[in-house]
């Protein structure tokens, strides 16, 4: 008997008791549906996070400031970081902490550290802007902005054409949470001018920069809440920032971006090395790690539910096949009397179990994919909770996941099927033929 015969007969046998097979497949369906769905969501989230990581420059990304600045930077993160949905209002009485610059010598030291890619070091002009304002509102908000890092153009925008780095006018890619606060919508803010203001705390003077909004940044769960400027705007604000610095500071930078060899060194090892020369760094994991962990935990919980459902389904398979072995005792007896080997009988029932698993997983995966794509569309539609995350597909189905889930379920089904299949194989043809 050839394999195709066996598969064909196994499926015919499943059809002999349609309701029972259907219910068993339904149980497997629940398990396969939950597992493939969580895998799809996990893949979606990971894709999204990866694209965010990518926009920072990959796994080895380091945001480096001098140790003294680190607390100040963390404070800044707290106010403008991703967790606050609304921008924080400007309070003129509260003086912002200053940043301690990184000297040229420090950067030379940094270049020599083993594991740091010297060519990747970029001195970042982290701009010190006191507040942002618009003509549509009286409110003033704290804002963090920096020049778009060179070679890094992967900032997702919702609307607008994006930055022209070399443009002669002032341009800004605005973090999306400011749009509403400044009295605009994503559409009508494009090409409008907003004011970036630098206040000198000592001289009590204000310097205004009218920046044209050329794009609204798609909110990312991992975004640091920064807006990005073109070079001209960054240069002029920076000049304003250091105008009153002592001359020896003028050549310095407060933040440096660099890449380290993340294969060879752990984040902590690199941080320790930097600490030795008085620098502090944030890695990509510091920035997005908690979010990733959060999703991983939730999805793992769902996956465990899926596995539990599969275990229940496996018991369903065992039960179904035991009933079927019982019912088909005479048939098995006849098969064996006519020369079918015990192995073959075992194989027949195993294939039936595997077929149950196969159909259950095909069913589960198909329904999950239909619902997943529907959900992606609904969530991205107006009013959907992912409306403002147009680049985030909640459910992403990969061939690898689909094959892995199907294979896993077929394997579990096979294991479940071995018990009844062994009972069938061990039937004695005489006893089976005498069985009424």
């Amino acid at each position, binding site marked *: 008997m050839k394999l195709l*015969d066996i598969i064909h007969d196994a499926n015919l046998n499943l059809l002999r008791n349609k309701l029972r097979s259907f219910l068993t497949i339904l149980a497997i369906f629940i398990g396969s549906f939950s597992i493939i769905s969580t895998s799809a969501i996990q893949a979606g989230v990971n894709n999204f996070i990866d694209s965010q990581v990518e926009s920072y420059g990959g796994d080895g990304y380091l945001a480096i400031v001098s140790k003294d600045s680190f607390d100040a930077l963390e404070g800044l993160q707290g106010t403008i970081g991703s967790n606050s949905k609304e921008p924080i209002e400007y309070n003129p009485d509260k003086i912002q902490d200053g940043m301690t610059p990184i000297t040229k010598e420090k950067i030379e030291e940094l270049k020599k550290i083993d594991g740091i890619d010297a060519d990747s070091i970029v001195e970042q002009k982290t701009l010190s802007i006191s507040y942002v304002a618009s003509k549509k509102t009286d409110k003033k908000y704290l804002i963090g902005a920096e020049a778009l890092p060179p070679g890094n153009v992967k900032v997702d925008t919702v609307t607008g054409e994006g930055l022209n780095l070399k443009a002669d006018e002032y341009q800004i890619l605005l973090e999306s949470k400011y749009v509403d606060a400044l009295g605009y919508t994503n559409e009508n803010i494009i090409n409008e001018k907003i004011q970036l203001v630098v206040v000198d705390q000592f001289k009590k003077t204000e310097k205004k920069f009218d920046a044209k909004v050329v794009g609204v940044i798609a909110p990312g769960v991992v975004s640091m809440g920064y807006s990005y400027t073109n070079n001209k705007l960054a240069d002029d604000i920076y000049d304003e920032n250091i105008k009153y610095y002592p001359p020896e500071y003028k050549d310095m930078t407060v933040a440096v971006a660099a890449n380290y060899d993340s294969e060879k060194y752990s984040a902590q090892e690199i941080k320790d090395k930097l600490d030795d020369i008085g620098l502090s760094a944030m890695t990509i994991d510091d920035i997005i790690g908690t979010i990733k962990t959060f999703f991983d935990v939730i999805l793992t919980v769902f996956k465990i539910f899926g596995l539990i459902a599969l275990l229940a389904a496996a018991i369903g398979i065992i039960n179904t096949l035991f009933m079927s072995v019982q019912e088909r005792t005479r048939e098995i007896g006849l*098969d064996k*009397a*006519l*020369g079918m*080997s*015990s192995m*073959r009988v075992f194989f027949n029932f195993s294939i039936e179990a595997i077929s149950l698993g196969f159909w259950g997983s095909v069913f589960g995966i198909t329904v999950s994919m239909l619902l997943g794509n529907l959900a992606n569309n609904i969530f991205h539609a107006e009013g959907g909770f992912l409306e403002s995350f147009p680049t985030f597909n909640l459910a992403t189905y990969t061939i690898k996941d689909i094959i892995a889930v199907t294979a896993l379920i077929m394997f579990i089904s096979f294991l479940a099927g071995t018990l009844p299949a062994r009972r069938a194989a061990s039937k004695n043809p*005489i006893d089976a*033929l005498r069985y009424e």
Partner: protein
Amino acid sequence: MTKALISTHGLRKTYGKRNNKFDALRGITIDINKGETVAIVGKSGSGKSTLMHLLALLDKPTKGEITLDSQPTAKLKARRLNAIRNKEFGFVFQSFFMNSNDTVLNNVILPLKIAGVSSRERRRRAIAALKTVELDDKRNNKANNLSGGQKQRVCIARAIVNDPKVIFADEPTGNLDSATGEKIISLLFRLNREKGITLIIVTHDLELANKCERQINIKDGHIVSDSTTDTELSDNVDDDTDNWEDEEADTQKFAGDNNIDGMLDHQPHITHIDIDKEEEE
């Protein structure tokens, strides 16, 4: 002595263990030749089916040996036994044993499918077998929708589809009315005449038995008469028949105290049944 197709020596079959021991066969020695038509007759419970199952290599004797084509079968591997049953034997049972939801054709195909014959070839051979039993026009019917006689003909088609040397038939007419039974019987004898297939038919239908060249009469696991080999035993048939009622009642007792009165004279080797006969199955 001519070379027998199947021969047995001192076959014994004990069912159950310890106190539930029951000797279904108590020493059967026979030779069955190629092309013979043999009826195994006897009352219900006398051990006919048990003997047939042993001859058909469906079961193993507790003691004694079976040779097929002069080859001892006791040490044959399961795979070889399966192949022999699949290729050289055909089976017909009293209660048909068909997959009633399947088509007639698929039922006939079964032995070829087990043998791994290609689907085109097995279809061809199954249709030929159905022609022999004059049912090829019913090949796509569900087996369930056939009459009893037609079902048994389908079973005969299934039994001959692999061109067997021997057909084992256990009460082939048991579930049929006598007219239909006649047809089945003549079909079986035609196969014997035309294809030389050896027939071993278990029956308690005397009419059917008398059509066979040879009748082996079994009682309580013994051969009480064999129409071709000896007449000596037939004397005892009377004795046994006289005691029939008593023995029926005492069957369990025989099994228990291993002492078979009235049989000792003819089968002295049975006087003592090994206690260690428990590893049956």
